[in-house]
């Protein structure tokens, strides 16, 4: 079983929701990033999602975009991410996931990318601009290295398309809570429950709810329909305001 799934299942056995914080690599600074990761890990993150900054992140809202562009300006690249992770391999309790857009991965070289993920202890990958139809060549390159491609589905994904993703999906299914980009929302669409129930029927791996999540209270209405929560923009804003990752995680524990 993929380490990401193991961690989410562990949380579930304890009656908890799996916690999946997202931070762009190199945020808020090159040095501080690794400390934030350690704090998130110590605070009970099941999977840590590390953003691979890209110049044109069309699926992201303004908070993640601004943070990612700052990281790019600071010279963050895939080599820096892999070097840092290799140096710290084995120190994280959480499973590690890389999230980004296809072009930087494509330029890095898919085989090298897969091998470096393995060497750095990364077990999952999300490519935000790659639907099922285009995903074959990436899956083929990374799966031999024990890296699973995490599917993204949403409110407008039909059951038929969910089934396409579900056939070989590993780790967890990332369910996007809104028709929109990443970013905090005050309220979430009513349709989520119905679609989450559908996803629960189609996927035999855990379901994580992401986009727009800022506080655990938002999740009570989805009890039994999802297994983990992804939060990025709220965490980034919290850190930008001078707070720690640890204090952000407190209400989730």
């Amino acid at each position, binding site marked *: 079983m993929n380490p990401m799934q193991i961690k989410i299942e562990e949380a579930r056995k304890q009656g908890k929701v799996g916690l999946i914080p997202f931070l762009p690599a190199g945020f808020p600074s090159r040095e501080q990033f690794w400390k934030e990761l350690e704090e998130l890990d110590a605070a009970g993150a099941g999977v840590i999602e590390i953003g691979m900054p890209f110049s044109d992140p*069309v699926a992201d809202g303004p908070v993640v975009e601004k943070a990612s562009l700052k990281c*790019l300006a600071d010279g963050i690249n895939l080599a820096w991410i892999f070097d840092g992770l290799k140096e710290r391999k084995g120190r994280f309790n959480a499973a590690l996931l890389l999230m980004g857009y296809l072009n930087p991965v*494509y330029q*890095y070289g898919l085989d090298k990318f897969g091998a470096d993920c393995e060497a750095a202890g990364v077990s999952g990958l999300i490519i935000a601009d790659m639907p099922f139809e*285009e995903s074959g060549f990436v899956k083929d390159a990374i799966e031999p290295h024990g890296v699973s491609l995490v599917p993204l589905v949403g409110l407008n994904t039909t059951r038929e398309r969910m089934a396409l993703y579900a056939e070989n999906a590993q780790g967890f299914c990332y369910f996007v809570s809104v028709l929109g*980009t990443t970013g905090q929302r005050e309220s979430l669409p009513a349709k989520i429950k119905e679609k989450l129930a559908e996803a629960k029927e189609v996927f035999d791996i855990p379901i994580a709810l992401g986009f727009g999540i800022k506080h655990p209270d938002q999740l009570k209405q989805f009890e039994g329909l999802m297994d983990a929560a992804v939060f990025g923009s709220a965490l980034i804003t919290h850190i930008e305001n001078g707070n720690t990752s640890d204090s952000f995680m407190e209400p989730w524990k």
Partner: protein
Amino acid sequence: MKKGYFGDFGGQFIPELLMPPLIELEQAMETILPSEEFQTRFAHMLEENVGRPSTITHCPNLSKDLGLDLWLKREDLNHSGAHKINNCLGQGLLAKMMGKEVLLAETGAGMHGVATTVAAAMLDMKAVIYMGATDIVRQAPNVNRMRLMGAEIVSVESGTKTLKDAINEALRRWIADQENTHYCFGTAAGPHPFPTLVRGFQQVISKEARRQFMDRNDGSLPDVVVACVGGGSNAIGMFHHFIPDESVRIVGVEAAGTGEPGCCDSAPLDHGTNGVLHGMVTKLLQTDEGQILPSHSVAPGLDYPGVGPEHAHLQATGRVKYTTINDGQALNAFKALSRREGIIPALESSHAVAYAIENKAELQGRSVLVCLSGRGDKDLGILDQIL
């Protein structure tokens, strides 16, 4: 060939949340587009509202100056002033027949925004236009025209504040507002099916031009066909029906920016590498690490770091030759065509005209048919500052 691909280029590299509207669009292309109702209404709109067929014009004075036989396909005479209207009326009508109420578009030079706004007004739809803040300043006349015709203009402040960023923001809006909104993509680029859809609406340019040129030249084909290439919609429209004609040399002209060493340009086919952006595998201006580089051209409509995938394929197969013209050469062509023929071309189209001027020695005695994709009224503000 894999669906949505031109050789190795094309595809659908977009978030899953955009797949349902793309699938819906693809289905509409298969059902609505071939219907008699669509074809009749579209043909009527092209004739009555656009003014098609647009003429071809012989340029006697410049031909004499240059020692070649210069002809122009006059897309600048279309209603709203550019080739863009062919595509916008096509997509607008398709969207209307799909039951959509809003036309969403990005624009660089503003011509696509104007054409989308015209289509929306004609079809009783709402137009929402995303435009980079830099381009809003550069192309103020077009912004005013769009506002006059009722468009909502959204100023894009992110990134380079030009076309690339306008596309990013429009895609984000489409993710959120897909139920009643059609994204009227402005060029033969982006995720499948847009490159095919836009080429389908723009191929009327070469269909007419080929026949018109032969009618005027005793059945002969032109020796050279030229068009400027930004995203590549006027070019793919101008090239399409000439591609099987082996005797015709086809040339696409990209923008070389200022032409100074180290300057940004807008020439991914000439200076770029293969990559993935805005839903497609294509040639891109990018770093070795896959970050998209800023582009530059004095012509806002060419100021884009990518290009439609069919052009990347036509370059790879060698059927079309792509080359560059810099800002200064384009401005010279702008002045030459204005003064010698009384035609003020768009700065974008001036790049294509400049090809004939800069290569006059090689083209002596040849017939050269240039797509004059748009008129230059919109550029007078830029030109006041630099000429």
